């Protein structure tokens, strides 16, 4: 079986220590997490983990099984890229003088549909949401001018298909 990118979604109780348990499952199997995002979900008091890994379908099935087994995990799913809508968020911090001296910079901002978050005397900050490739493309464009700081978030995603989590919770409650 070949490696593919999978997005694992975990719905869980919002408890201390669960991140440790979940990351341990990847650690034990020596699988590198490419990106990790934890936040509130659409359901009150339920957290959602979004974990991106490159691995085989058999392994991802195994891992999801092990994750679901954790007491505080309500349900875990995995999806391929084709089955989800996903994006990442990036911030670029760039020297302010460039905004005025380099005409091209303004064009890059416009064309990439990124937004200026803030401008100060010394620097300005651009935010860009999109797929990894779009962010990387933008990075390449800014690079020659000098990037003071760059940061990218973990992947966030929603599935194209309905996730049966709400009805599941209703049945449990």
């Amino acid at each position, binding site marked *: 079986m070949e490696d593919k990118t999978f997005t694992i979604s975990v719905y869980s109780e919002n408890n201390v220590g669960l991140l*440790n348990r979940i990351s341990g499952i990847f650690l034990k199997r020596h699988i590198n997490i490419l990106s990790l995002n934890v936040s509130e979900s659409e359901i009150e008091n339920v957290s959602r983990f979004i974990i991106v890994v490159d691995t085989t379908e058999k392994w991802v099935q*195994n891992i999801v099984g092990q994750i679901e087994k954790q007491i505080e995990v309500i349900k875990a799913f995995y999806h391929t890229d084709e089955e989800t809508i996903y994006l990442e968020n990036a911030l670029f911090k760039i020297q302010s003088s460039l905004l005025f001296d380099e005409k091209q910079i303004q064009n890059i901002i416009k064309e990439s549909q990124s937004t200026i978050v803030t401008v100060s005397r010394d620097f300005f900050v651009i935010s860009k949401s999109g797929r990894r490739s779009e962010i990387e493309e933008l990075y390449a464009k800014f690079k020659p001018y000098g990037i003071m700081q760059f940061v990218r978030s973990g992947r966030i995603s929603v599935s194209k298909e309905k996730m049966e989590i709400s009805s599941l919770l209703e049945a449990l409650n």
Partner: protein
Amino acid sequence: MKISGAEAVIRCLLAEGVDLVYGYPGGAIMPVYDELYKFQDQLHHVLVRHEQGATHAAQGYARATGKVGVAIATSGPGATNLVTGIADAQIDSTPMVCITGQVGKHLLGSDAFQETDIIGISTPVTKWNYQITEASEIPEIIAKAFYIARSGRPGPVLIDITKNAQFDEFEFSYEKCTGIRSYNPVPKLKLDKVAEAAALINNAKKPFIVFGQGIILGQAEEQLKAFIEKSGVPAGWTILGLSALPTDHPLNVGMLGMHGNYGPNMLTNECDVLIALGMRFDDRVTGKLATYAKQAKVIHFEIDPAEIDKNVKTEVAVLGDVKEALNAILPLIEKRSHDSWHNEFKELYKIEVESVINEELNPTNGKGISMGETMEMINKHSKGDAIIVSDVGQHQMFACRYAKFNSTKSNITSGGLGTMGFALPAAIGAKMGRPDREVVAIIGDGGFQMTIQELGTIFQTQVPVKIVILNNEFLGMVRQWQELFFDNRYASTKMINPNFVAIAEGYHIKSKKVTQREDLDAAVAEMMASKDSYFLEVMVEKENNVFPMIPTGACVSEIRLS
């Protein structure tokens, strides 16, 4: 009524039906010990000699009784000493609750005296763990702990309680836990899967059952027997499934795996339908996965969804409670006898008897006492009624291969983790849990010295366990591997041993050492007749090997007879 957190801990244990706990005191758990003192009429505390002993004793208790074992320790070194036993319980699905003391909440994370992150340390080896920092959390969390430990696929739970939470007072009330929203311990049985499984079994020419500890944990021994007898399917067992079916049952074809019997291993790669009941295809059982039962359609009866297709791809997965599943499948099964298929097992058993078993049980003249004949002698005097607790090594394989069992929950051994030092404390727990039964520990000279201090617990509590040391003056199992796979280079496996009898006598335990075959019978008879604990050292052949054997990474049908 307002009570302290420490008193609440005791009241919670009592509410869960606990009457016996194993432990070792220390600073961070002293409030709980103070309450143990007050409640000693209702809750018996056994002082072990090392916290590892507390976990193994709790495990032995749990395995012999089916109840939850409880171990208590202080923070820091007390807590870390529990880890081996917790890991052992986790991999062998043993229900256990461990309670550790912790430094006060205001000191957490400050590297305080005897502070250790036991939640972090125990996370990978517990079914669940939780740190209590407020007294008022105690009832709910302990109720959850017992529910999680004993339900579904059982396992160990660790509860860490800060010292302030033990001292603080709160309004106490207790309610047992009956469910947790994010935890579904027993998947609902799907009757269409049961029907699919039944159809496969009814059409099979060479069906084969492999059963594991799930049968014992699910209390499905009667159902297993009925299922085997109606379907006529031969059944082999994993090391933890041993004793779920009486050894003498005519459809019992023996042990699977690395040192299992010849027939069941060979015929795993011949059967057309493989019915796995409450077992998880451990690599010691399957050998090389790529060649394991490839010709067979696999039906997996299992409570833990994460085990389905983990190692072996199944044709039909019957998820749920194994007892319920067997009850459901029984009426759908056609009565069969599969005589010629049985004969294949019998033929292979004959080969094993001639090439291995005869020599092991009746060694040719000039050879020292064998481990196998010692087990036979124990069978003779126990009549198959004893609980046999074995440690880890060659003697364990001989014990599991040759011990006879009439009833369930009688074989207690460290299967998944293979923890040397397990047997002595586990035997203490087993005997305390089942005082009505004879408990015999079978231990190697190596493993004995890993928890030898528990002789002190035996002496202090007067628990009448029988201890048999099979002394080959080697770390035998490792020596065997060195002989077979490392060109006889015996690196650090020779043991220069102390006078074990003198040590046991130092603990005031009746002792005997046997070096001659002709003395074995009388010594075992004396041990079994003793009302008190008894220590028997048997000097056995030094360089004996356990066969059959499937070398690591080999295929089950490449099993070697010599």
